[in-house]
């Protein structure tokens, strides 16, 4: 079972809609422990991705990811712009030449993506960042793959893992980014970048599996 290119495009469009809808919520999370712009910036970046999608519909999945990454890199800004940009640019390699991806490919894609985020942002587990979601997501996908689950089951597990990962950031003390300046006062707030990553992951699940 595979994720078709059309579903990848739907996913990116869906992210654009979600980040428009959740703009103020993400901004509020970022007001608590940051500079109150994460929602604004994700909205800004994914609006542009949505615009660009029409020009890259005919490409393979790798090119679509690379274009998405470069667009996010130059439009989102702040700390998360280069991180999400790098995520998609790195993810592109495993999608090159492909018009559809299977569970193996998805594991590789997300794994490469988070490797890029870590290489750029140098986050460690428990630092209260978006990586705390991506690591649990990759772990869940690998586990599903090893247990021989089909794509649908893996995506459902992935969605659950992303929710757990985002929620886990609440009790963490931030060691990276603006939230780290608050030290202990960052505890008790869900990390904005982790939240937007969770939203992205669940959007993929919803596009492929439907509302769970």
């Amino acid at each position, binding site marked *: 079972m595979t994720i078709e290119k059309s579903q990848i495009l739907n996913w990116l469009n869906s992210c654009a809609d979600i980040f428009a809808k959740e703009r103020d919520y993400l901004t509020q999370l970022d007001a608590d422990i940051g500079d109150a*712009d994460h929602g604004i910036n994700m909205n800004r970046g994914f609006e542009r991705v949505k615009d660009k999608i029409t*020009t890259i519909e*005919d*490409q393979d999945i790798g090119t679509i990811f690379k274009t998405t990454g470069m667009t996010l890199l130059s*439009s989102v*800004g*702040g700390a998360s712009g280069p991180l999400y940009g790098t995520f998609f640019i790195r993810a592109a390699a495993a999608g090159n030449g492909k018009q559809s991806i299977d569970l193996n490919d998805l594991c590789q894609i997300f794994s490469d993506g988070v490797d890029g985020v870590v290489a750029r942002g140098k986050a460690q587990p428990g630092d209260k960042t978006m990586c705390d979601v991506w690591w649990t997501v990759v772990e869940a996908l690998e586990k599903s793959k090893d247990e021989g689950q089909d794509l649908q089951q893996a995506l459902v597990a992935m969605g659950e893992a992303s929710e757990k990962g985002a929620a886990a950031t609440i009790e963490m003390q931030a060691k990276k980014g603006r939230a780290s300046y608050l030290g202990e006062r960052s505890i008790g707030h869900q990390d904005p970048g982790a939240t937007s990553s969770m939203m992205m992951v669940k959007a993929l699940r919803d596009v492929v599996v439907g509302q769970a």
Partner: protein
Amino acid sequence: HRWVAPEHALSPVIQSWERCCRRSNAYQWNKPAIASGATLESLLKRSKDLTTLSAAVLEDSEQYQPQRRLAIVVSDISACCLKFWGDQSLIQNLQALGLARGSYWNEDQIGTNALALALHNNEATSVFASEHFQQALHLFSCHAAPIFDDQGKPYAAVMIVSDISNHHGGDLALVASYAKEIGNLISLENSVSERNTLICQRDAVLESIDDGLIAWDENQRISFINRQAQNLFNRQRDRIIGCKASELFRFPPLIMHALQERSSLSHVDITFECDNDFVSSKVTVRPLNDGSWLFFMHPEQVDHKSPSIAE
């Protein structure tokens, strides 16, 4: 009304004063023209790429020097201010003078100023305190730089404004660098768009032609095979991509020789081997200057006739 030593007579600021002297009163401030409503909306929409990318470049600028009160502005080619970032009270001071979003920093309306001069001379320019023609602007230190497209045409500008107490010469270097950063970003986007268009064209061509095509890189690793070529082999695609061409295929000496000499061969009839299957085809081999190869397999044509012209 001011004496200028001869060696400064050519400075952009002095030349600007000379233009202003003829038409304005330095002690009477008039708010400049300002675009608003639907006009402003339409201007902002037209410049959306510019303001979005500029935002990503400029919006965190203040975090690097939190102790200074700075405002950063991006304008279009007509010196119309599209977006402000930075210290809110400084921005309000400017707004009080009518220098808000949508305002035109034209020299003939507000006198000598960095934004107008930068766009006039196509150069990063500073205008400090009383270098402004209008007295109302003597409170400010401004540095502006134009943003150029690939063709060398200016289409926007960015400006840093501070109180004169906060003046720092390094802001000129900073605004010049910001202008290049934004310009390069936009060039990069255009280049990526162009690249995507080329990929589209190339892939559409490779799918639509009758010829089969296999491509391998400078290390002989097969990087591409189109459907038409794929159909000739009994191997799955993912067991062809990545293989070494010389290991997968047994080519006749004619081809091997061309590969070694890096020479082209056009439309030669050969038979070659793949997995114990023999394939007979009219082929073309073509080296590219990055070391890669294109290997075409042409379908046999009726009497070698091309599409016919009936006269």
